[in-house]
């Protein structure tokens, strides 16, 4: 599918494995812009309510595979692009997407899905002007969180216990390894205080 351009505004992606951290990092980054009266905002996971609605269903009907979960993430992202991200970009605003494409790709890669399938599936999403990953280590990696905290927490709650445990430390390390690999290609550096304070406004 043809990728549409990101418009006049500025799209910043923030990627990571924990919903809470993503929300906090996006809020901190947005403060930098808000303080300078820049228009825009933050686009978060599950804006479409797909995952919240699924959570309401009984778990026995919810034997969703990693691939199905990625497809649902993509459907939610299409919604976010349509109602939050593209309108802001078209008006020349700054929009922070936390998470954006690479969190879902990292999840898929850690679950053993093909990178080419993941990349082509998300071809509809415009490339961000900048992409950052959150620093995660130690205790934070062991914290499972609640299912609606974020995409990875939701998947961890849904996927069967005897399959790759999406909430485990090892699984999150695999996701982080993918994001670090992007960093190695200068595509997704770590989000630090210095990075935040040096954002052009």
């Amino acid at each position: 599918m043809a990728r549409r351009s990101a418009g006049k505004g500025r799209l910043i992606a923030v990627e990571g494995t924990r919903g809470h951290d993503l929300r906090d990092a996006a809020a901190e980054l947005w403060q930098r812009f808000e303080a300078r009266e820049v228009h825009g905002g933050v686009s978060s996971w599950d804006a479409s309510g797909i995952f919240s609605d699924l959570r309401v269903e009984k778990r026995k009907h919810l034997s969703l595979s990693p691939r199905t979960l990625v497809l649902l993430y993509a459907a939610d992202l299409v919604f976010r692009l349509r109602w939050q991200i593209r309108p802001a970009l078209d008006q020349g605003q700054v929009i922070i997407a936390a998470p954006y494409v690479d969190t879902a790709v990292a999840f898929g890669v850690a679950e053993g899905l093909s990178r080419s399938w993941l990349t082509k599936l998300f071809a509809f999403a415009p490339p961000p002007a900048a992409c950052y990953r959150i620093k995660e280590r130690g205790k934070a990696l062991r914290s499972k969180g609640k299912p609606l905290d974020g995409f990875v927490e939701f998947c961890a709650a849904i996927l069967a216990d005897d399959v790759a445990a999406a909430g485990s430390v090892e699984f999150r390390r695999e996701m982080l390894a993918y994001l670090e690999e992007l960093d190695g290609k200068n595509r997704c550096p770590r989000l630090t205080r210095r990075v935040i304070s040096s954002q052009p406004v």
Partner: protein
Amino acid sequence: MVRAREKKRGLLIAFEGPTGAGTSTQRRLFKVWLEQQGHEVVTSKWISSRAIRPLMKARARLHALSAEELCLLQAADFRHRLETQILPALWQGKTVVADRFLFASLARASARGLDLDWLLFAHAPLFWPDLVFYFSVSPTTSTTRVAAGHAPKFYDAGQDVTNIADPIASYRRFVGRMIKEYESLSLIFQFVTVDGEQPIYEQHRRMRQLFEEQRRQPWGQGNLEAVVEWLAWSPAAAEVRRGASIRG
């Protein structure tokens, strides 16, 4: 393990066509006939997954879905049905009749202007039926049959792309595009075409004949990928995994 199951596995037969082509009528007749022939038959209907269908219904009621969202939710529904209904049944040697399979989504999404290559990726790994019956009807026949029943719903009528307020008038325009896409898919993927304008029993008799002439083929690469992935994660396949590890 998958190759060893090949001879015991069930058959997947898909019924495809635009609304009003008669797929549901023929599917019911064919199911009864298969059962009389000794097959244990499971039916799988398009957009019927217990997890995804409620999401789609709620959003379709609000006319809130874009073509891409609709396609991705249909792809999720397809994957969920494949992994929770179709593959477990085939693995147990049952015959599955699918009242519209993935081609229903592909034809409609292509008619909405989405790129076929991307659509195929969204539905990958593609799982190939053993036989696809395509019920060919003209846009006029399809519209006449649809108009004789309830008015088609917003997305069934293609009102999201035609912007025509009258559902029947919208369907009349949309079905032309849909049939064109179906005809292309039919050529690319070699469907078995049944003339949906023939008398009902004549179509049924032809299908029996085509089914009996069909030679069983081993699963192709896409099917094997889908089965291996299903075996790797699905709670429904846990027993199969345990059996394999005991034998191994």
